């Protein structure tokens, strides 16, 4: 009986000790878990913030890309349309210039062009080229420029003259075509401004 009681006491002691140990372990585990959870929460929050930030950045990037390329597309289409308009105006103006009446002030224009061209070359001993339409007007103007002569060859142009020094080393193009070409960027700007662009 006494043996049984001692055994029972020993067992109780072991059970009690084990229970205490288990309870302590459980307590520790709970507190560890709590700690881990607390740590994870802040990490999670950081991770969450980072994901949100990255997502926002990505969204901004995509937004910029879409808006940027569509704005550019629209602008480029506008530029092409504008250019089409400018070209139409240009070709219409060139047609009108080509069909200008050669009488009246036109001979004054030829005179001015010849004067300007010979001054730039520094000599009046030149060969003058022009188109078929302007041959007569040019021929009559040449009397004022001694040493100059009209070439029998004609050139393809809207009007005006091209002169060459007699030794053939210097040429000056004073045709209307050349003058328009030189001023083309400015004329384009003027035309574009009438469409409400540029100014």
């Amino acid at each position, binding site marked *: 009986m006494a043996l049984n009681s001692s055994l029972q006491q020993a067992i109780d002691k072991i059970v009690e000790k084990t229970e205490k140990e288990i309870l302590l372990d459980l307590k520790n585990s709970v507190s560890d878990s709590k700690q881990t959870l607390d740590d994870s929460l802040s990490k999670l929050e950081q991770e969450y913030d980072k994901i949100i930030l990255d997502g926002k950045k990505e969204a901004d*990037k995509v937004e910029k890309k879409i808006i940027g390329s569509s704005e550019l597309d629209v*602008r480029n289409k506008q530029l092409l349309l504008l250019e089409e308009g400018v070209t139409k105006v240009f070709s219409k103006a060139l047609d009108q210039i080509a069909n200008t009446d050669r009488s009246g002030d036109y001979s004054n224009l030829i005179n001015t062009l010849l004067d300007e061209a010979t001054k730039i070359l520094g000599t009046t001993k030149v060969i003058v080229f022009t188109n078929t339409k302007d041959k007569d007007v040019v021929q009559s103007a040449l009397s004022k420029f001694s040493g100059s002569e009209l070439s029998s060859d004609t050139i393809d142009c809207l009007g005006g003259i091209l002169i060459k020094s007699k030794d053939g080393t*210097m040429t*000056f193009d004073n045709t209307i075509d050349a003058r328009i070409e030189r*001023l083309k960027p400015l004329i384009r*700007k003027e035309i574009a401004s009438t469409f409400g662009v540029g100014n």
Partner: protein
Amino acid sequence: MTVEGGVQYSKIAEIKGPLVVVDDVDNAAFDELVEIETSEGEKRLGKVLEVGNGKAIVQVFEGTTGLSISGTKAKFVGKVMEMPVSKEVLGRVFDGLGRPKDGLPDPIADKFVDINGEPMNPEQREYPKDFIQTGISVIDGLMTLVRGQKLPIFSGSGMSHNLLAAQIARQASVVGTQDDFAVVFAAIGVQYSEAEYFRRSLEESGALKRSVLFLNTADNPAIERIITPRVALTVAEYLAFDLGMHVLVIMTDMTNYCEALREISAAREEVPGRKGYPGYLYTDLSTIYERAGKLQGRKGSVTQIPILSMPSDDITHPIPDLTGYITEGQIVISRDLFRQGIYPPINILMSLSRLMKDGIGEGSTREDHSEVANQVYDAYSRAQEVRALAGIVGKAGLTEIDLKYMDVGDLFEKEFLSQAIDENRTIEETLGILWKIVSKLPKNEITKIKDKYIEQYYKEE
């Protein structure tokens, strides 16, 4: 622009390399634009380099291949080379001479500007002090770029400077202001694939609408490269000083520009200087780099990032050497880091932004920026020494603090220096990483930062 044209001369005395010598010329002017017409009627552009004794030496931009003495004509246009400028140039792609390359018409010009620009009055210059965010941590954090600065990137052949250039072009922005920002990108003598990469990169990121691209590819005549940076800077100056924008000009690769300069100099039989480059290389480069800056009373600014590849990675080569004299610091790309696969492979110990101190701190970036940057510089420098020591005595021979510095060096390269090519970091993120690195050090090793900042930002692990 005038209605008067120029005289066309047909007496060509000599064709030598990229030069054409025209005889019996009256009234030609230095730098005057010349239209060369071949016997087949093809037109090329050039400019007058020298006049005198009835002769004019003309440098042909598109090269002299196919030209012959008989049949070639030179027309002196009567004006210097001009670039048509307007706000419409934004979003456009041009070739190295400023002609449209995107299939769109010539821009409707607001005005025509001499591509040589006007020298800035030194008295009118304003000291650069406003921060530009590139989104690249190592630049923003340790070698900060400021508006109006010229900060070159020294690289070597085959390294990732073009990736870096494109990333800066895509990401750069001005913070804390509503002012407009634009990027002018000049590719000088780059490969076709690189030019396409720049164009695509800006198009796909949506950054093209605020950019202007000038692309001179390697197959274009070398002489065109003389013009490319000048047309790019002309556009930049217009955007900055006429339209009030903050403009970042990226020019890559300036070495190709200098090679073209050497080619012309050799053809002119000038006395060569170091490595065959002309003696006036310094002066010539300064006419490009000195076009960066800010002017008093004007809203905009021109900031330059010229990129040059150092032949044989030699930093004493005349190009980086002379560039370094003119510019305000340098960013050096390291082949060692590049080989380790680190991007961007910037060697911070050899790099420096001389104007950084004025562009950072309270009101620009953050009050602790300067100190935390100095501390990281110092720590990384120490880490490099420790690595060298470890190479001799082995890791086992290092002290505990040495090992800490080694870790700091590794962390620096892994988390701060390394960055994805599409990763755009804000300055706050950059400073955050700098503090993470500093926090790896024991507090008693932090000697360059005020206690109040340590209390605020130091996070012991």
